[in-house]
């Protein structure tokens, strides 16, 4: 606990932002839906890290609570998301998001 607290807040937030942007880039760039889901997880983690940092800075437990909430939401999202990807794979024989573009306008 002490070690983490020792790291400066700005560095922690920088790491959180980096995680978020890496995840965001993954969502935008990757075509494989599995990787998109994984990138989303990275974005979740970036957000969660920002909450933890804020909680440590102001010595408030709310941030820890939010992290638990994010973990639950992420778990649920992965459950639903993997289920959808599995169904898509059965339906189309691929998990390439660009090829599954039936709802073109």
């Amino acid at each position, binding site marked *: 606990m002490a070690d983490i607290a020792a790291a400066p807040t700005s560095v922690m937030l920088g790491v959180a932002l980096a995680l978020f942007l890496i995840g965001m880039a993954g*969502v*935008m*760039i*990757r075509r494989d*839906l599995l990787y998109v889901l994984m990138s989303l997880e990275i974005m979740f983690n970036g957000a969660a890290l920002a909450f933890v940092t804020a909680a440590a800075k102001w010595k408030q437990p709310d941030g820890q609570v939010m992290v638990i909430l994010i973990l639950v939401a992420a778990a649920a999202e992965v459950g639903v998301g993997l289920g959808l990807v599995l169904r898509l794979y059965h339906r189309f024989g691929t998990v390439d998001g660009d090829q599954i*573009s039936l*709802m*073109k*306008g």
Partner: protein
Amino acid sequence: MSWLWLVPTLPLAGALLLALLGGLMPRRAAGALGCLSVGLSWIVSLKVAAGYLAATPATGAYGQTLFRWIDVGTFRIPMGLYLDQLSLIMMLVVAFVGFVIHLYSAEYMIRGEGYSRFFCYMNLFVGSMLILVLADNLLSLYLGWEGVGLCSYLLIGFWYQERANGIAAQKAFIVARIGDTSLAIGLFLLFAHFGTLDIQRTMSLVSAPSGASPPVVIAAALLILGGAVAKSAQIPLQTWLPDAMAGPTPVSALIHAATMVTAGVYLIARTHVLFSLSPVAMLAVAGIGAATACYGGLSALAQRDVKRVLAYSTISQIGFMFLALGVGAWWAAIFHFMTHAFFKALLFLAAGIVVQGLGEERDMFRMGGLFTKLPVAAWTFLIGACSLSALPLVTAGFYSKDAILWASWSYRGGSAVLWAGGMLAALLTGIYIFRAFFLVFFGEQRTPVESKPGLLVNLAVVVLAFFAVVGGILGVPRVLGSTNPFGQFLAGIFGDGPAEAVSTEGPFLLFSSIISVIGIGVAYALFKPGVRAPAVARSAAYDAVRRFLLTGWGFDWLYDRVFVRPYVVLARMNRADVVDCLYTGLALIAGAGHYLLSATESGRVRNYATAILLGAALVVAVLLWR
């Protein structure tokens, strides 16, 4: 007199019955119904006339309001009938000539299809014409005016399978439309200034001292004249009448000679108060009349088609009526209308016998030698021709035409130029009609006679021939010792009746008699059997003149170049409507926007995710830097 409403109603009811049930009836029944409705109408009109003469109302007019047609605020138009001396004469002539021609058609049209349709249109025509002459307000008159125009269109195109007939019908309708528009604007002008369309009230308001300013009167008179010119086939809107001969011959006799084409004459006589207040309009009427009389006479000289000769003759004779109107001899115009209705209907019906007898042959140069083959037609045509060319003393046409010629010299608006024009037209009349007579009935026979006329057809032409001779007795001028009852009768509404006998009238009468006899003599010298065409007739210049006259002075050619073709070119240029550009432009912009936005709907999830993220980033950025 209270039966007056039956006069136009009976033919209209006949038309309605024939329209609804005509297809179910046998031919004889349809023909009988068609004749019966008009015949009854004629009998009722006789009864009404007898009642009118026995007990003439103090004002000289009997009005009958049938129902209220339009009632919006202060705009009230009743459907009313108005019987005075003028409409009485018109009504009697229309009903009588209409009835005789219906009898003729009952037999004449029996072959061929559309028998009940024919009588439906004819009844509708007679009903509309009676509404026109009996209407007490200008809007009801306009209703009848359009009604007869419609029937004219329907009957010219009666044999609609022939493309040319349809085109002729459309031409008549469109040319008449020009005049109708002018007349309608004239009515708007009168209503705007006087707030009423009742003819008698309008006329009294016009002539009141505080009435209308001269420009309004002149404009209204000229606009009404425009309507009359188109309906009565006067220069410059005369081109439709020769083509209207595409219709069946009884139609030409009834509509395009005896009644409808004289509606313009009636309209001007009806609104004579308006015209007499504007000398400009009067001069225009007289000038158009004299010019058209000569135009029609010259054009008739060169025609080959016997019906076209009669069509140009009709144009010419209505020109005479306009000449009479223009110089203020209202009664003479109506008198000539009446005698013209008799002798021109007669000429058409007699020509119809010939045309049908030769198997629809209309070219006079393929006729000939029919005097002994079709004696009834020949004799009645001769009587009609004599009346038309005003053979002195014995024919009706002489008295009416002489009255006009004398008026064109002696009346207020008369002048030597108008008189000379009338004289030239009178001379031409004798030449062209007897040219037709000699070509059709004398010389060698070129086409065999296929069929002879039946009883009803002969009866109709004999009755009309009788009236073409004796119809003039009513209007014998005073210089010949008569009291001129016709002119006296109409003096009740036109104010000044026929002029007193003047010493100069005698020589004029003699001169016009000589002129008409000279015309007949010239025709005899040139076209009597066995006369060979003089050498001049083979020259190129003569041929050019002949073709010029044959085409009616090239008016059709001129109008085609000046109006029809530029219009067609404009229409082609504007095929994609200019006004439409605005609306198609709007539609195009909306369509482009649609395609632009629909391109973003790529169906690629990551693109959507990118858009959401960028949008979120934008919102955050705005919130931070606001």
